[in-house]
């Protein structure tokens, strides 16, 4: 060997010494006990979920088994099903059915409107069009929900923008015909269930578009090509490949639109008739009426409905493609 002597070799041990310091020994500790790190990271959110969220939910559930003394207005803290029997009064059943029907209609309409938008975004939009899509979907979420609802009131009011537009198009008769219908009609769109429905669909639409888009994004183009290659018409490809694979996204989106509609009390208060939705009933009972037990019982309704909904969705195999 030629003498390539290294003068005073620098320390180059096989095992490096500990760097010292608290951070370094913490790193070593976490490396040796990865579960400890996991625990440390999960503890705050678990505490939050466990105490604040689930605790509040349990307290609520508990309240619904109390009752109110009709004469004194005091809450009687004894276990009873009296409040639930009150929930089953025809006027309250009306509220529940109205809300559930509205939530179901809003969900179906959102899914129908959202699907083509999500499909376009997932399949065709690239580069700046994709950015524009995200901006377009998210932008309404940046502004206050109240402002948007009041803006819609202006649009839907009797002398509002939509009425003006229809007048210019000589379609006022169409609007009048619609408004003269029972249930969905009214004096103007802003005081009808139709108006409530339109605003619900508008406000919750992003929550439907984004999950569907995410689901479609995960469907490789080669799958639709393979379907066509094997002889499936575009309609068959949609029915047998695209829709089943988008279904988890649709279900995820519908959980948002359905539960948000079930619980909302502001939109029907600003735009709609004087007939109550669940959210408004809860608001009224816990506020002026001071009937916390009934308000709590009303709140349990959407929770139970969502539970059934998820169970049914799972039974239908909506989560199989996840």
């Amino acid at each position, binding site marked *: 060997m030629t003498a390539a002597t290294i003068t005073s070799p620098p320390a180059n041990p096989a095992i490096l010494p500990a760097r010292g310091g608290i951070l370094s020994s913490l790193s070593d500790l976490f490396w040796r006990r990865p579960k400890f790190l996991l625990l440390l990271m999960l503890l705050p959110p678990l505490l939050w979920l466990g105490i604040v969220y689930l605790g509040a939910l349990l307290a609520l559930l508990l309240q619904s088994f109390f009752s109110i003394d009709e004469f004194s207005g005091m809450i009687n803290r004894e276990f009873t099903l009296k409040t639930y029997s009150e929930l089953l009064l025809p006027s309250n059943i009306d509220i529940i059915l109205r809300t559930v029907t509205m939530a179901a209609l809003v969900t179906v309409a959102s899914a129908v409107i959202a699907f083509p938008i999500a499909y376009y975004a997932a399949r065709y939009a690239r580069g700046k069009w994709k950015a524009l899509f995200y901006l377009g979907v998210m932008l309404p979420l940046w502004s206050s929900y109240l402002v948007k609802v009041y803006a819609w009131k202006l649009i839907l009011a009797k002398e509002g923008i939509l009425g003006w537009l229809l007048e210019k198009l000589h379609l006022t008769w169409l609007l009048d015909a619609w408004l003269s219908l029972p249930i969905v009609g009214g004096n103007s769109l802003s005081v009808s269930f139709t108006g409530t429905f339109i605003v619900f669909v508008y406000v919750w639409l992003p929550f439907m578009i984004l999950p569907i888009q995410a689901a479609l994004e995960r469907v*490789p183009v*080669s*799958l639709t*090509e*393979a*379907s*066509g*290659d*094997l*002889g*499936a*018409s*575009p309609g*068959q490809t949609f029915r*047998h*490949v695209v829709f*089943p*694979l988008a279904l988890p996204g649709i279900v995820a989106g519908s959980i948002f639109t359905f539960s948000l509609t079930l619980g909302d009390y502001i939109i029907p208060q600003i735009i709609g008739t004087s007939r109550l939705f669940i959210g408004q009933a809860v608001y009224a009972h816990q506020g002026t009426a001071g009937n916390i037990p009934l308000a709590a019982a009303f709140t349990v309704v959407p929770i139970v409905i969502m539970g059934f909904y998820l169970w049914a969705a799972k039974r239908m195999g909506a989560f*199989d*493609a996840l």
Partner: protein
Amino acid sequence: MTPAVSFTKVSRHFGTVRAVDAVDLEIQPGEFFAMLGPSGSGKTTCLRLIAGFEQPTAGHIRIFGEEAQGVPPYRRNVNTVFQDYALFPHLNVLDNVAYGLMVRGIGRAERHKAAEEALALVRLPGFGARKPSQLSGGQRQRVALARALINRPKVLLLDEPLGALDLKLRESMQEELKILQTSLGITFVFVTHDQGEALSMADRVAVFNEGRIMQVGTPQDIYQKPRSRFVADFVGSSNVLPPDFVQRYAGQRRWGSLRPESIRVARQAAGEGVQARVVALNYLGSATRLSLDAGGLRLHATVPAGAALPEPGEHVALTFNREQLHLMEEGA
């Protein structure tokens, strides 16, 4: 005889990119035809043109004599084995295979029976109940094959179907595909960038480069008589010889090619032949490949196992038979 697939001046341009540029091609019925080329050479686009996923910008495609212009994929009796297999993740293996029959409205019992048979054909009997995610790469490949064969297509298109498999599996699948093709008599069109695969499986090979076909011929033709430098370079390890060099030995100023196995290596320097220095040795098992430097020209030669090997840095003399030197076309 009507060709299974014929291209007449077919082009497919994407903006300024000429993915396929004025290609003429005839694939005969019952043929195992390989499209070989580097990525981006237009071979996959040609396959997609036959399948109908792409429409030509210009030219005509005929499938068994019938004009394919404007015919959507679902009306072409042509099926594809996709590179990523494209198995439907929400369906089990049996329903995947039966899909082509299902969309044609064939009853459940009948199509499942046919699917079982197709699975047996690709040696996966009894796998019907599994989901694609529960299969290995090789098994998915077979399912994709069974699914594509269930409609008894006139032409089966295979887009680099063996690309994702490991060497051992790839070799056994190559053999099986070849046997399957012979027994079914279906025209296979096979896209690959692996020259070994193309040469070993195909009846004829088309070599693609930059949207054009550089050469079409039998594997022997392509291997032994490359028409251009690109083909010689791409199809294997041939030595490409510049005109100056060729003129000395063949008397013509043309590019030439010489197979590494045609070169004999003599260990004494200053002997007869081309003087060269050994740069490196690569042991290949059945032979050893020598990298040689012949006065600036980089050459490769293979020495069969068992023969005496020179050392790196050693000077050697190279000889070859004149007729082994293949002359390429002028301007190649």
